[in-house]
C-alpha cells in the first residue's frame, strides 16, 4: 500500500532526454496504466520508478518520502518483465523463493508464501520444473508469482502479455484483473501499448508521448473527453475518424473527430461515398467509406454488413458525439 508521487521527473541517456518532466500522482491501491506509442518512454518511466535507472532530475516519492537514492529492493516494489526474466537454472519454486531466502524468513514461512502464490496462479503442478520446461503463459504466471511472493507495496508490469498469443493474452489479462481485485491494497503500474489492455484493466490511464504526459484520466474520461488529437487518436479501436478541410469547417473546427460507432447510415446523410472495404467481425462490422477525406471514413455497424463494396451510401455523424479540435489539436468547447 503506497501512493506514488512523481515531481518533474526527467531522464537523459547521454545527450538525449527521454523523459521530459513528468508530474504524476498514483493513488494507493490504484491500477495505473501507462500507454503510448513505441519509444515514448513508458518502460523508462517504469524503470525509474523501480530504481533500475537513475533519475536525472526531479523527485520520486513513495508515501511522501523521497526514494530517489534507494535501491530497487528497498523500495518495496516487485516487477514483472516482458521477457519474464526468470532464473533459468532454478526450479519454479526456487525462482519464487529466491528473493525471500535472502530476506529474513524461516523455511516454513517461505514455503507457505510460495505455495499460496502458486495456488493463486494455478502453477502448483509445475513447482519442480525449470522455466524452459514451461509454456510462455506458464512462465509469465511464474514471473507474476515471484512478484506476489515479495508482497510488494507497488507492483510494476512492463508489457507482461506482449509475448503471449491472443487467446492467452485475454486469459492472463483476466487473471491480472483478478489479482488487482485480490490485492486491493497494492498499487499497480502497468505498461502496455495495447489500448484494449489499458481500457480493460486501468483505474486510470496515463497517456505518454515523447517523454511527456499527454493526458491522465479514467478510461471513460479519455474515451469521451480526449484532451488532444493525439489521445483521441490513440484511445479507441478502430481509430477515431479525423476529418479536415471543409468537413471540419462545417463544424467551425480545424479537425473534426468522430468515432466509428457514432456514425449512422441514413438515406440523406451529411456525407456520402462509395464503400471501399468492409470488415466483418461477426458481432459487428466496419465499413470503410470513401467520402473524399484524407483517409476512408470508418463506420461501425452492428451485426454483419449489408453494404457490399462498391455501393454508394450516405452517412451522418451523431451530432452530440462529435469531437472538435482547434489548430493546436486541443478540444474546443461548444
Amino acid at each position: 500500500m503506497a501512493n506514488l508521487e512523481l515531481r518533474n521527473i526527467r531522464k537523459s541517456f547521454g545527450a538525449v532526454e527521454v523523459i521530459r518532466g513528468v508530474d504524476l500522482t498514483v493513488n494507493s491501491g490504484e491500477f495505473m496504466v501507462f500507454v503510448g506509442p513505441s519509444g515514448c518512454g513508458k518502460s523508462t518511466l517504469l524503470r525509474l520508478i523501480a530504481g533500475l535507472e537513475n533519475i536525472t532530475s526531479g523527485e520520486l516519492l513513495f508515501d511522501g518520502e523521497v526514494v530517489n537514492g534507494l535501491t530497487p529492493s528497498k523500495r518495496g516494489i516487485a516487477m514483472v518483465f516482458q521477457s519474464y526474466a526468470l532464473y533459468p537454472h532454478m526450479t519454479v519454486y526456487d525462482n519464487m523463493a529466491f528473493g525471500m531466502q535472502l530476506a529474513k524468513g524461516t523455511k516454513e514461512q517461505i514455503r507457505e508464501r510460495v505455495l499460496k502464490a502458486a495456488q493463486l496462479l494455478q502453477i502448483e503442478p509445475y513447482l519442480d520444473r525449470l522455466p524452459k520446461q514451461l509454456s510462455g503463459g506458464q512462465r509469465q504466471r511464474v514471473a507474476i508469482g515471484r512478484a506476489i511472493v515479495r508482497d510488494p507495496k507497488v507492483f510494476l508490469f512492463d508489457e507482461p502479455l506482449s509475448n503471449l498469443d491472443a487467446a492467452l493474452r485475454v486469459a492472463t489479462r483476466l487473471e491480472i484483473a483478478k489479482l488487482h481485485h485480490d490485492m486491493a491494497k497494492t498499487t499497480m503500474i502497468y505498461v502496455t501499448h495495447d489500448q484494449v489492455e489499458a481500457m480493460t484493466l486501468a483505474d486510470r490511464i496515463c497517456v505518454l508521448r515523447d517523454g511527456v504526459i499527454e493526458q491522465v484520466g479514467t478510461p471513460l474520461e479519455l474515451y469521451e473527453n480526449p484532451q488532444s488529437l493525439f489521445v483521441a487518436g490513440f484511445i479507441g479501436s478502430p481509430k477515431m475518424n479525423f476529418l479536415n478541410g471543409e468537413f471540419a469547417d462545417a463544424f467551425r473546427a480545424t479537425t473534426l473527430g468522430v468515432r466509428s460507432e457514432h456514425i449512422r447510415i441514413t438515406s440523406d446523410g451529411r456525407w456520402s461515398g462509395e464503400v471501399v472495404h468492409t470488415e466483418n467481425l461477426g458481432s459487428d462490422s466496419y465499413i470503410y467509406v470513401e467520402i473524399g477525406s484524407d483517409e476512408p471514413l470508418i463506420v461501425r455497424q452492428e451485426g454483419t454488413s449489408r453494404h457490399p463494396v462498391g455501393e454508394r451510401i450516405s452517412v451522418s455523424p451523431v451530432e452530440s458525439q462529435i469531437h472538435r479540435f482547434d489548430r493546436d489539436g486541443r478540444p474546443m468547447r461548444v
Partner: protein
Amino acid sequence: MSVDGTVAAPAATPARPIKNELLAQRVRSARIFLVPMIVALLIVAGWPLLRSIYFSFTDASLTNLYDHEWVGFANYLNWRTLESGRTIFRGTLVDPGWWNAVWNTVRFAVISVSLEAVFGMIVALVLNAEFRGRGIVRAAILIPWAIPTIVSARMWGWMLNDQFGILNDLFLRLGLISEKIAWTANAETAMTAVLIVDIWKTTPFMALLILAGLQMIPKDIYEAADIDGVHPVKQFFRITLPLVRPALMVAIIFRILDAMRIFDLIYVLTPNSSATETMSIVSRENLIEFDNFAYGSAQSTLLFLIIAAMTILYIWLGRVRLDGGDR
C-alpha cells in the same frame, strides 16, 4: 573410428521407409563432408601416432631407426632376477625421471589452469561491464595470446634474467627481495617462472571463452535479482557462476588438455631444469638427445594415453550432465 561410429548410428536405427531415405541421404552427405578432415587427420596425426606406438614396442634408436627388434613391453616395464635373488625393474614405469616429469606436468596443469580460470573470470567480468573503449580493451587483452610462444618465452626470459632482468630490478627497488634471483635457473623458482609466463599468456584465451559464456546470460535476470535484493556477490555465486559453468568447463578442459602437453614454453624458458621437466620434454629428450628412440616413444605413448583417458572421461561426464538437463 569414433567419427564413423557416430555417423553410422542413426542409420542403423530402423525407421519408416520415407524417413529412412531422408536419413540415408543425410548420412551420406555427412560422410562426404567428413572425408577431407578424416583423411587429413589420418595423415598428420594418425600415422605418426601409430608409428610412435609401434616404436615403443621395439628397441629402435635414432641412429638406427629401421634396424630394430620387437621387444614387447620392455620399454614400459621389464624385470630381471639376479642370481642373488634380487629382482631389478627397468622401464619408463619405474623411471624416477619419468615420474618427476609426470608430477611436474600435473602440478603445472593444476596450478596454471586454476589460476587462469580465476583470473580469466575476473577479466571476463570486467570486459562484460559496459564502459567506454571496451572494444579496444578487448582487443588489447588478446595480445599476450597472439604473441608466438617462442617470442614471449624469450621476452620473459630477459625480463626474468638474474643480471639484467627488469623483474629483479623492480623487486629489489621495492624491497621485496634482498638479492637478485636467477628465476629460470634456480630449481626453486623455475616452476614459478614458467607458471607466471603461462598464466600471462593464456589468461586472455580463458577470459574470452568465459566472456562468450557471460554474454549469453540475459541482462534482465540481474535486474530481477536487484529487485529481489540479491547482493552482487551472491548474484555472482548464485546466478552468474551456475549459468556460465558450461562455458567455463569447456575452457578449463581445453586448457588442461593443452597444459598436459606443455612443451615450447619450458623448452625455451628453462631448458634442462629437472624442476620444470614435463612429460613432453622428457620424451623428446629420450627421443632425440639420448638416442633412446623407443624409450621416448613409450613415454609419448603414455602421454597420449593419459590425455586420451582424460578426454574420454570429459566426454562421458559431459554426456551425464547433458542428460541431467542442465541447460
